């Protein structure tokens, strides 16, 4: 049973071709990147466990810009540490700043 959760906040910049991907796509791109990075993810409870994350204000489709997201883990991880692990897993056009 996972009990404690630790949130780490990131700012993500959408540019280039990635502007055509929706908020839903972004959540799935991030989830898979986090899974590939092999991080200690915190999953939501219930029948369909998901990686827990919460987004700030979503960007419109087709617009460049930045957006905040808080991702939850079962252990503490600094924004810098997370950035380092996640960066190699991000597609071109999605930058962590």
């Amino acid at each position: 049973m996972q009990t404690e959760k630790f949130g780490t906040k990131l700012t993500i910049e959408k540019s280039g071709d990635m502007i055509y991907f929706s908020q839903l796509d972004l959540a799935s791109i991030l989830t898979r990147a986090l899974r590939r990075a092999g991080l200690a993810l915190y999953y939501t409870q219930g029948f369909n466990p998901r990686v827990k994350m919460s987004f700030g204000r979503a960007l419109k489709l087709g617009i460049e810009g930045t957006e905040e997201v808080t991702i939850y883990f079962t252990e503490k991880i600094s924004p810098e540490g997370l950035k380092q692990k996640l960066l190699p897993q991000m597609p071109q056009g999605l930058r962590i700043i």
Partner: protein
Amino acid sequence: MIDFRLVQKPQRYIGNEINSIKKSHHGKIPICISYPDLYEIGMSNLGLRLIYGMFNEFEDVACERVFLPGEDLAKILAGNNIKLFSLETKTALDSFEAVGFNLSCELNSVNLLKILKLGGIPLKASERKELIVFAGGIANPEPLAEFVDLFYLGEFEEGIGKFVETFRKYKDKNERLKALSEIDGFYVPQFYNVSISSNRYNFDRLYKPAQFPLKRIYVENLDKSYYPLNWLTPHTQIIHDRVPVEIARGCPNSCTFCQARSIYKPYREKKVSTIYNIAKTIYKNSGYENISLLSLSASDYSKIEELLDVLISEFKDKRVGLSLPSLRIDDTLSSLYRKLLFLKKTSLTVALEAASDGLREKLGKKIDANKLFETAKIIKSLNLRTIKLYLMIGFPEETEEDLFAIASFLEKLQINTGLSINVSINIFVPKPFSLWETKWMCREEILEEKIKLVLGSLKRRRNINVSISQTKRSILEAILSRADRNFSRVIMKVFEACGYGTTEDWQLWQTAIKECGLDYKIYLESSYENFPWSFIDGCKASASQNNRGN
């Protein structure tokens, strides 16, 4: 440039997915491959991914992908004289040396022409000077003989090495085709003349060294064969949004109506350890949250319980969903289904095909339906939400009793389990190479009556949801899968009439068939002693040892 904000789902055209491969074309053989349907459908096809990965293993091949654009983008491309381009390097299709298609779905025939046209490629094989259009995954290639230069019959894993070797050795299109036609599995329609006389299709070689009769080629050692481990991971949702991990190919059963069983002969399994390694590596490379164990009959896999144990212990904590595409009823009795509870599986799917025992026996379907009732208690305890059943109608020798049996069976099952039942009823199509390829397709008006009878007997049953295939669509599928070379003309006419719009309108096909002076019934009612596909005779493992190139 195209303003992708003007089209629906621009994600389809961007590419740039995790593990997509971009190579410079300089000094390489550029090949584009396609599943001729929309991105989200095509990307769900395993065959395309296998071939994409295998081609790109060759250092001197640059393999890219293209899918059918939506009608909106197709119109923009055609209206602005922009050629359809590959996803990877956005190269116009006519700049490739070869464009390949997976034609496993007959109803995509016209889509093939749409893609060629949009890509600036002449539609007919005879009109193309350099570029080779090749295709595979199709049981009966004849209706597309006019458009495709080169078919591969069977599993392309065995032919891809020879294909690349030949492309290296020869630069001229005709030289390439000649050389390939001499190799097992490759079929060049223009090298054969087909005529009809004394009630038979006759096949004559125009290029004498070409293979005849042709054999379908299969991978002998599935366990050691290539699997795409660097899994192409889309950034957007696709139809089957999970990683299919093939556990076996072919099927040990002999259902009379089944085409897949015949064209993926013989039955072969991968080892548990191989499957485990594949699943683990793909997860590491893709981060995909769902894995599905792929085979025609997953529960026939000889070590299914061992396999599930291994996979469940690997993936449980990672919250990766595992699923099996179909199960036998016997599995509800075994501990197998208990294991599946770990796998987020919320429905039980049973391919029953016929509701009456007698008809099922004729189909060679070895299922004891009564077990479903015996196991009703177990089924109840599994916390399932629904039971999904697959049935078929339109079989030869099918009686009214067989049809009425559907309603009584479903009712009994519903009452016994208390679950809601989704039943999907398909129409029997006598597919080439199936054991029943010689049977007649049920006529349209009779099919309509049968459907009326089934639906009538199921009226107002709560918790039983029925969906039935459209008769016209099934008839079209039958024609396209069974037709001969004459039918290329019809496909061309339908393409000319539909533009980039829908191709499933029966009226379009009917008009085109009439204009070509054809009677489609000859394809549905075994009018000749043999078939348009009779030049393909049996199958064999590839004899050549060094066919892996590189």
